[in-house]
């Protein structure tokens, strides 16, 4: 914990956000949120998946515009309509996914942002100045290095330095410390302390409570779009924070436990490593197994490698190291067609872009279940469609209704029904319960269990921890790319899981 200004309310906040709300189609991401940022403070912003913390900082950075609410800087009202306006007001966002362009060097990336240089400035003009700056900070990188050669940590550092060069008065840091090893984290923390000494503010979004308590002066906790707690960091326990993040849920152990049909292993991964989109490893040596008839749920805060793991198993992402076996067949890096033919179904993380053909109708999407013949047996798929619409409680006027007109939840139901009905050996599902209402969740669970009795195995993730706990016969917890805990359904302790998710 850090000891900073003991009286937080003695001075005026630098930035005041009042009553900020934002709705995305049917989801209310933020609900009348008040948020104050004081100069010289490190302000932690905590919350579990879907709490709205990313949305809030994106609004402050001009990426989204709020549906209602006002933002004041130094008591003057501001309209942050784009990142460049935000930057002009001294607000810079550094997010988990770097915005640096990989092909270009650090110098080139920086030059684009610095308004004080004219268009015909040569890149070497700022080279020496950057080298000096890096040396002062203790960063041993040549500014003429292409960004793709940098490690993820180094990229984060570069983006933070960019924010400094842009004279940021408020640095919004969205999960920048999530994938850092602790030695690097320490480096970053001392940098933060230096920065706020000069009157700057830092808003640090993290899901790791211990990190927040270590470095922040003040905490705001969001849950489901609302502020549930504002508190200085001194004297606060981790448990107290956690309870506020996750809320008091009536977790009922619903007692439909699924015992695996046999101890036969249907899926096995051996120490696999998978990279994310920005070059860093998102899966760092994960070895798991899945038994026949088992439902394996992976709990974790979004972005800790769960999706990359599942995509890699299905052949959509390259496995850099390690191997994957499906029933003793080595399927490491085999193409998706091969894996699917074995009887593996897949529900992607982005159902609209990767799962359903949005311009087609429901029956046509079901027809995609069977791609090896020449002619389409429409009557079969129409029959299936009627059956599934009933079975999965899909609301649609017609089986030939265009998918793009369905509500988000029904869309998901079509996808889930297609993949669940197709899978004969394993169903791999990213974010299985996204957009589903309570009744549908119950239905899906029941249908999954029926199939598992006949030998189907399921491995899935969900942003909703309750769902993971309710659906699974065994639970893994992933944090920062590794498996940090394993529980079976009858001895899972929710507190423990949460702790592992946010440690």
């Amino acid at each position: 914990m850090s000891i900073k200004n003991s009286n937080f309310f003695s001075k005026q906040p630098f930035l005041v956000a009042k009553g900020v709300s934002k709705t995305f189609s049917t989801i209310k991401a933020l609900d009348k949120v008040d948020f104050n940022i004081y100069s010289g403070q490190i302000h932690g912003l905590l919350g579990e998946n879907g709490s709205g913390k990313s949305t809030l900082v994106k609004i402050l950075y001009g990426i989204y515009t709020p549906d209602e609410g006002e933002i004041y800087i130094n008591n003057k009202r501001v309209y942050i309509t784009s990142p460049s306006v935000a930057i002009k007001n001294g607000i810079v966002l550094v997010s988990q996914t770097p915005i640096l362009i990989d092909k270009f060097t650090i110098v080139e990336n920086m030059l684009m942002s610095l308004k004080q240089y004219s268009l015909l400035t040569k890149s070497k003009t700022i080279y020496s100045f950057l080298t000096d700056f890096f040396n002062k900070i203790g960063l041993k990188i040549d500014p003429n290095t292409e960004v793709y050669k940098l490690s993820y940590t180094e990229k984060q550092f570069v983006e933070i330095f960019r924010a400094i060069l842009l004279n940021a008065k408020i640095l919004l840091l969205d999960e920048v410390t999530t994938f850092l090893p602790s030695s690097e984290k320490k480096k970053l923390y001392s940098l933060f302390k230096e920065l706020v000494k000069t009157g700057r503010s830092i808003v640090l979004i993290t899901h790791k409570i211990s990190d927040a308590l270590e470095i922040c002066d003040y905490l705001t906790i969001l849950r489901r779009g609302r502020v549930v707690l504002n508190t200085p960091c001194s004297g606060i326990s981790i448990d107290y924070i956690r309870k506020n993040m996750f809320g008091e849920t009536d977790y009922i152990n619903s007692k439909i436990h699924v015992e695996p049909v046999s101890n036969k292993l249907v899926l096995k991964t051996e120490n696999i490593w998978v990279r994310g989109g920005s070059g860093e490893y998102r899966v760092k040596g994960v070895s798991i197994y899945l038994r026949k008839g088992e439902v394996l749920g992976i709990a974790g805060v979004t972005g800790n490698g769960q999706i990359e793991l599942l995509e890699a198993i299905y052949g959509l992402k390259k496995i850099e190291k390690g191997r994957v076996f499906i029933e003793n067949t080595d399927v490491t890096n085999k193409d998706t067609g091969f894996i699917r033919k074995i009887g593996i179904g897949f529900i992607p993380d982005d159902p609209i872009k990767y799962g359903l053909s949005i311009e087609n109708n429901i029956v046509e999407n079901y027809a995609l279940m069977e791609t090896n013949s020449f002619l389409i047996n429409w009557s079969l798929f129409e029959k299936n469609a009627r059956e599934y619409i009933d079975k999965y409680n899909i609301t649609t006027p017609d089986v030939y209704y265009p998918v793009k007109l369905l509500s988000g939840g029904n869309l998901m139901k079509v996808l889930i029904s297609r993949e669940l009905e197709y899978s004969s050996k394993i169903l791999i599902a990213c974010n299985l319960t996204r957009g589903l209402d309570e009744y549908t969740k119950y239905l899906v669970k029941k249908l999954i269990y029926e199939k598992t009795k006949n030998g189907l195995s399921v491995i899935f993730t969900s942003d909703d921890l309750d769902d993971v706990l309710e659906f699974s016969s065994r639970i893994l917890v992933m944090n920062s790319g590794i498996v940090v805990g394993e529980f079976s359904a009858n001895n899972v302790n929710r507190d423990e899981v949460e702790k592992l998710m946010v440690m």
Partner: protein
Amino acid sequence: MIDILSIILNTCPLFIAYQIASIGHSVVEKSGVLNLAIDGLFVLAISVSFMQAVYSGNDILSSILLSIVVTLLIGLFIVFISTKLPVSQGAIGLSIMFICYGLAGILGVPARSHQGSTGLKIGFNIQQNIVYSTIALVLTILLTILIHVIIEKTKLGIAIRACGENPLHAEALGVNVLRIRLIAGAIGYGLIGLSAGLFELLYSRLWREGHGMGHGWIVLAISLSSGRNPLLCLATTFLFSTLYEYRFSLLVFGIPREFIETLPYIVAILSMIIYKTTPLGEKLKPPQYLGKPYFKEERTI
């Protein structure tokens, strides 16, 4: 006996036309704007400079200027529409190509008959003149180096390339994508217009309906297979311009005339295939966002 000097002299006007056009095309595409209209623009600009030359009594300067202006106007329109609206850039390019083909014929034919009645000879022959050819070559090479330096080493060039690689990140990094693409378009399309004027007035110096068709695609192939790098284009341009200029010398080998006419196109396709399938293509990848709509949705004001 092959006289290198006379090869260079004879090829010179075509060389500079191809080179300047491919630099221009490269700049436009480096900013992320797909330029499928190039053949149409080239044909139209040729026709326009011919027309102006005929009506102005062979005023080379105004003819080339008009060619530049026309190409610029259409080009900036392409850039604006492609960046501001979520359109299919390929469709825009092709439709403008057709319009340009049509306009070229409609404008050129009356000019041609006017030329027929006045007997005016247009253009300026530099092919046998060492001094003018050397000046032209040197200027072209200097221009190539200048554009290369701007694109690779200045803030403008970085911004242009960023718009082509990832305009969303570029915007996040502070680049005004529309403004930068318009600047790139001004440079690029201006150069294309210039090259067409030079092609018509220094090289072909004649006109008939459909004149110039196909050369734009050669320029596209040059640019693509050189990785849109102005310096590399010099080599590829040299290959294509000498091939085209001296293609009929292959008649002595008994190759039929029609096959000779196909050679530039076959070589164009082959050079693009070689680019794509060799390490060259790995080192000099096309701009990632080329032709992709830049349009972002979330703007509910």
